[in-house]
């Protein structure tokens, strides 16, 4: 295989660039740094986890035991899309780890949260933080809770909640 990457197989990410053997493959260090730099998620959050690639650029996060490489249906959860200019976390990983985030988190009110979960795009010009992929959150039972990933450009927040995960919820 030209790029050493196999769409049927999970390969554990190399720890660092120095250990990389497959071109273009993200490293564990780069993934952990991404979550820290973009969202302020402390790197130690991921100490017990391994990261894997299956298919070009699709990164999975896993906490169990497994040898590499491994040909099975899934390990842990899909986590991040790499091998593109702007890396993009998944809705589910953001829900799972988003409570550790301190940056690029956009807090929505009830109605905005409802629209976001339904997959709607909305103009939110008051946001004065970074553009690009943000964690959308709202308050539930007195604490902030991540809803999913949004793409913020030109004053608009686009919901990235996948079709199958979108829900029409009570306001």
């Amino acid at each position, binding site marked *: 295989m030209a790029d050493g990457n196999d769409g049927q197989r999970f390969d554990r990410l190399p720890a660092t660039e120095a250990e990389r053997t497959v071109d273009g493959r993200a490293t564990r260090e780069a993934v952990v740094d991404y979550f820290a730099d973009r969202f302020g998620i402390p790197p130690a959050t991921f100490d*017990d*986890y391994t990261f894997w690639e299956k298919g070009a650029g699709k990164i999975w*996060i*896993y*906490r*169990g*035991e*497994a*040898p590499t490489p*491994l*040909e*099975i*249906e*899934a*390990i*842990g*959860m*899909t986590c991040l899309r790499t091998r593109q200019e702007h890396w993009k976390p*998944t809705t*589910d990983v953001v*829900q*799972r780890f988003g409570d550790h985030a301190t940056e690029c988190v956009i807090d929505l009110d009830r109605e905005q949260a409802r629209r976001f*979960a339904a997959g709607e795009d909305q103009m939110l010009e008051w946001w004065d933080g970074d553009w690009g992929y943000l964690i959308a959150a709202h308050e*539930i*039972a*007195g*604490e902030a*809770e991540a*809803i999913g990933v949004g793409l913020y450009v030109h004053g608009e927040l686009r919901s990235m909640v996948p079709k*199958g*995960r979108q*829900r*029409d*919820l*009570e306001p």
Partner: protein
Amino acid sequence: MEPLERYRPIIDDFDAFLAACERPLGNAVRVNTIKASVERTLAALNEAGVDYDQADWNPRVLTLEIDSPGSTWTSFHGFTHGQEEVSAVPPVVLEPQPGDRVWDCCAAPGGKATQIAALMDDRGTVVANDNNLGRISALRFNAERLGATGLAVTNADARNYSLERFDFDAFDRTLVDAPCSCEGTIRKNPDALDNWSEGHISSVAGIQKGIIRRAIQATREGGTVVYSTCTFAPEENEAVVQHALDNEPCRVVDFDLELEHAPGLTAWDGETFDERLERAARIYPHQNDTGGFFVAKLEVTA
């Protein structure tokens, strides 16, 4: 209900049993502690004005007074997962511990596999297998929504499952939540008995016997295997466990269960079973206003 007549001799208060089978079931959900504590989940339900009942035997099992439990914020966030009350019993009986290697050999769509992961604090390895690829996609969807990071999902026939793909050669615990004739789901699926036949029961029993044997072989000495079905037929329950006792190194062990239940049978239709099968549990719909279930716990002895 006709097929259920064969259980008249073994079920106390058979008329109450039949009446319960006619009643639809409430909307039960399990609190997914990987995503939120019971306390926070209850607070979120209160905030949304959703009434609920908490099960006496398990604070993580709730019945919601609502028509569509899938369209709540708690469901969207994966704080809750729709799962029948009795279906939450086998993982509790399995008693998985953080760090364990667990095999859920018939795992799709993943209600119990994710419950096992939650009971382990999402630490350790839960190999969630199913031979039906279509159902595996539902399993994967649920695992991701519920944030279970310790699941390894495989697609194979449990009867000749190979451990070669992993670095270890035995599991600490295995759940066999077997395919079955589903008589106990009648309250949820009123057509559950439409294709009922003794022939079907005996062919499913053949598959169950193959799966339970492989489950015991793949579990280490001293490890635990829990066998469960959502059916009443002794051919698929006690007789399958008896087959395992006759052919694999294992014994039936006790467990505590705070739900009302009847003991496993030691005889059926001219056949007798090991006396220890009384330690298995038969949960009937009229006892706790739930679906029906059978659960047996085995210890692997070699």
